[in-house]
């Protein structure tokens, strides 16, 4: 070290030494920079940057050495042999290039160390080639130990420099690599120079034969050369870096864009995946690593040859096998693109799972009743149709049950639709619990259900099942804490004997259901051929009744109401008659239920009101008329208007009109019904309760509306002489009515005994055959005229 120090201090020009050190520093830094840049590239790009690094390193090392040589002042004239000098520059560049190439193309730190050692050796070789190029008036004497040391230092720092140069994981390597390179150059030069002793006694060695250059010119040239190389290198590097940064930004933008895409995107080269976006990774559950180098065969079910075959555009549905082995239906759009100068395919995949789920739900909704989850009418029809086709082959009898809940409407009206819906759900649950899983249960709408009871099935078995259904559905329900009782009527049709096709079976099950209902409900009936005939006659009757309304075949008869106290007729009850052109007079009992069912009661009711008020208007002023109203008229919503119009049209004083309602009107006890009753009363008409005592809780209704009159049912009158309980009830009702200020009429009085008992009980009015049978308007008119004469 002392020797080196002395060497620098006494035999060197300090300015040139500093210049050499600076050139070496910049050179080392630039070379490492260029090398690192080249490391991130491939192909021709890498070669270019490798060459640049080699030139930068070689030139500066060479320049450092020669400037160092120029700084050497052995007090002897020194010149350089141009040939050897140029050769040493090429040697330097070649060795640097070889070393860098080795480090770049072969991975592993050992290779880099070897490459660095090679570069160190090269530095030494160049140095000694350069020293040999010195032509001076003396001779050189070599110190072998110092030469070895200089080579060792060059090898050591060269190796360390390259190890650091291409290691990007340790931050310190960033500055350590050029520093090591710098040390390798500078130290080996200094020690190398120290290894040389100059002796001036020697004969000039054929100096004149060498083309020589003066040291200062050489130094200036070298410096300019170095600066040029370095400046050009650094400028090129910056340009390239910014290009690359822009390219990288664009790539990042593209990747972000691809990742933002809702659709899965796969870029593939032939059948192998290059990359995929975030959506696809999320859809499939694969990581980017798992996807890299995966093949399309691995990702897709089957081998979608269309993905690989060239062609510009392709759309189809395929199945991706996800990371967990799940099948993912996808819609694929394929497009050929050029990527990195090569044709690639881009597959855009739309996840169809959500759509499939939605389709499934829509399919379910289309085939099921949303409230109960049971099949709906459409899918029941389809199932029935299928069953009939199967049945044609295997001949297993099966049954169609048509069910209709009894009193469901009451539940809905009294407890509200929510409770009604809850009831329907409970009914659905009980149906499911009662039939087999293989049977198809459907809600056809409202409170109508149907069951396809799969076969083989005997008639007895179907009847047993129907009975069980009636029993289970009639069990009490608890709906939001309220106890509800309903029933069910069931019609049964058995295939094939009860109908050849779906519509016949359904129709016949409905007919049987109708019979079950008219037979008192809460029971089941199987279809019989006679039901068809009944239906026919019912339809014919309906048609006839429609004609009767239009053609005036309906007429009013009037039965007298007798005031017991005044012993005179105080009014008439209007009774409807249907004079059928062929069948003669038809009783209301035979056609009113049908009229109520079909809604014909509304025009009929209007006719009755109009005809009765018109007729009554022609009677004496004190004679009133009583008209029966049906419950159906109350739900029609136009009753008050109809009554008002009838009164206005006839000119009858409202107090002469008495409207009779039965308990069935009040059964619903809805606010609407009571409102209508009050509105009718506000018109001035009077309201009577008909058939009192036959209902479910007659007395309750007296509380809900202030009736003007009670008509005690004929059954009590007929039994009053033989049955003490009937007599007691009559007394009680009359007494109660008197207390409440309600008038009473005894219906169906047929004998003098009954008459006298009734009179004794205190009824104001009696009605019955004893007083008078229903009579035609003409007969009534005649009677009233006669009566006037008698009284007159």
């Amino acid at each position, binding site marked *: 070290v002392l020797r080196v120090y002395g060497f620098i201090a006494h035999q060197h020009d300090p300015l040139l030494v500093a210049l050499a050190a600076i050139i070496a520093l910049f050179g080392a830094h630039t070379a490492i920079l260029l090398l690192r840049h080249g490391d991130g590239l491939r192909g021709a790009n890498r070669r270019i940057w490798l060459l640049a690094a080699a030139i930068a390193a070689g030139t500066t090392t060479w320049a450092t050495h020669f400037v160092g040589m120029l700084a050497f002042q052995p007090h002897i004239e020194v010149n350089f042999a141009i040939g050897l000098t140029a050769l040493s520059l090429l040697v330097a560049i070649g060795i640097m290039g070889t070393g860098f190439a080795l480090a770049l193309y072969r991975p592993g730190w050992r290779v880099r160390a070897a490459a660095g050692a090679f570069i160190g050796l090269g530095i030494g070789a160049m140095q000694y080639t350069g020293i040999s190029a010195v032509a001076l008036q003396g001779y050189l004497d070599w110190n072998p130990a110092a030469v070895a040391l200089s080579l060792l230092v060059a090898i050591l720092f060269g190796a360390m420099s390259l190890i650091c140069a291409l290691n990007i994981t340790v931050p310190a390597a960033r500055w350590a690599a050029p520093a090591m390179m710098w040390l390798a150059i500078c130290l080996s030069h200094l020690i190398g120079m120290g290894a040389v002793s100059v002796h001036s006694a020697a004969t000039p060695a054929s100096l004149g034969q060498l083309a020589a250059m003066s040291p200062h010119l050489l130094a200036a040239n070298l410096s300019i050369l170095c600066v040029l190389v370095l400046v050009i290198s650094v400028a090129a590097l910056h340009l390239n870096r910014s290009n690359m940064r822009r390219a990288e930004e664009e790539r990042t933008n593209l990747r972000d864009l691809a990742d933002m895409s809702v659709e899965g995107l796969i870029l593939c080269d032939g059948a192998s995946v290059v990359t995929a976006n975030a959506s696809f990774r999320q859809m499939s559950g694969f990581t980017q690593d798992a996807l890299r180098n995966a093949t399309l065969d691995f990702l897709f079910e089957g081998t979608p040859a269309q993905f690989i075959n060239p062609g510009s555009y392709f759309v189809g549905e395929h199945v991706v096998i996800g990371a967990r082995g799940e099948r993912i239906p996808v819609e694929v759009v394929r497009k050929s693109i050029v990527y990195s100068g090569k044709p690639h395919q881009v597959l855009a995949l739309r996840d169809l799972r959500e759509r499939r789920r939605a389709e499934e739900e829509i399919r379910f909704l289309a085939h099921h009743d949303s409230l109960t989850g049971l099949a709906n009418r459409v899918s029941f029809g389809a199932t029935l149709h299928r069953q009939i086709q199967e049945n044609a082959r295997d001949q297993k009898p099966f049954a169609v049950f048509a069910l209709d809940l009894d009193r469901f409407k009451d539940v809905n009206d009294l407890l509200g639709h929510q409770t009604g819906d809850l009831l329907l759900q409970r009914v659905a649950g009980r149906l499911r*619990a*009662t039939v087999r899983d293989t049977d198809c249960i459907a809600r056809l709408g409202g409170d109508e259900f149907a069951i396809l009871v799969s076969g083989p099935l005997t008639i007895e078995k179907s009847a047993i099942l129907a009975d069980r259904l009636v029993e289970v559905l009639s*069990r*009490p329900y*608890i*709906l*939001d804490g309220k*106890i509800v009782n309903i029933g069910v009527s069931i019609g049964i049709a058995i295939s094939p004997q009860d109908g050849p096709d779906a519509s016949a079976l359904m129709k016949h099950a409905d007919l049987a259901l109708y019979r079950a209902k008219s037979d008192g409900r809460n029971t089941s009936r199987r279809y019989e051929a006679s039901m068809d005939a009944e239906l026919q006659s019912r339809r014919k009757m309906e048609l006839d009744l429609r004609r009767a309304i239009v053609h005036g075949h309906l007429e009013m008869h009037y039965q007298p109401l007798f005031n017991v106290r005044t012993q005179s007729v105080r009014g008439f009850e209007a009774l409807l008659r249907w004079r059928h052109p062929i069948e003669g007079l038809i009783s209301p009992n035979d056609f009113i239920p049908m009229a109520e069912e079909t809604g014909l009661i509304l025009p009929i009711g209007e006719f009755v009101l109009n005809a009765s008020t018109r007729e009554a208007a022609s009677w004496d002023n004190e004679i009133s008329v009583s008209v029966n109203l049906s419950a159906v008229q109350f739900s029609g919503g136009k009753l008050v208007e109809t009554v008002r119009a009838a009164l206005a049209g006839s000119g009858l004083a409202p107090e002469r009109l008495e409207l009779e309602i039965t308990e069935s009107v009040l059964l619903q006890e809805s606010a609407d019904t009571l409102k209508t009753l009050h509105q009718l009363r506000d018109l001035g008409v009077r309201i009577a309760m008909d058939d009192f005592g036959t209902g479910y809780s007659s007395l309750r209704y007296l509380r809900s509306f202030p009736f003007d009159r009670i008509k005690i049912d004929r059954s009590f009158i007929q039994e009053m002489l033989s049955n003490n309980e009937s007599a007691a009830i009559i007394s009680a009702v009359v007494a109660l009515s008197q207390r409440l200020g309600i008038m009473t009429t005894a219906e169906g009085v047929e004998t003098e005994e009954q008459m006298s008992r009734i009179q004794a009980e205190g009824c104001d009015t009696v009605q019955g055959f004893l007083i008078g049978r229903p009579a035609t308007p003409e007969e009534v008119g005649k009677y009233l005229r006669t009566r006037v004469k008698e009284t007159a």
Partner: protein
Amino acid sequence: MASQTDSMDAAPLARLIYRSRSVLAEKSADPDGLLATILQHARHNNERAGLTGVLLFDGETFVQALEGSLGNIERVYEAIACDQRHEAIELIDLSIVESRDYPNWTMAFLNTADTKYPDLRRFMTNPAKAASPHLSDAVFDLLQNMLPVPQHFTGGLPHFQAMA
């Protein structure tokens, strides 16, 4: 006698009493075994739903009292109403109550065919005439007097399960 959980429970406490006719004999060759299974299920379900009660059976007729929150009673009752192992269900009483009559039994079982319980036999044949409090009183007294049980015993009463 209301347990602590009841007093903390916001839902109103209710009691349901129903009667039904057994079809166990038609459904199974081993009706006693079937009944034991039913009881086991009932106790399990009741425990989860926080229901307690008593089941009376005379070989033909069931009378069951269920106590707990109204919602749970409604749910369990609907399951009972779907059960095909009995029929002709009549609801005798459904009312909001202050406290449980059978807080200690997820489903106690009494075989009323035993002639020792004339009150219960009368009740079984005509529950409509015996108002529901009478059932509770009669059964409650019986359970209390004849069966000294631990305060929070919920597993049913083994020697009361014996079939006639």
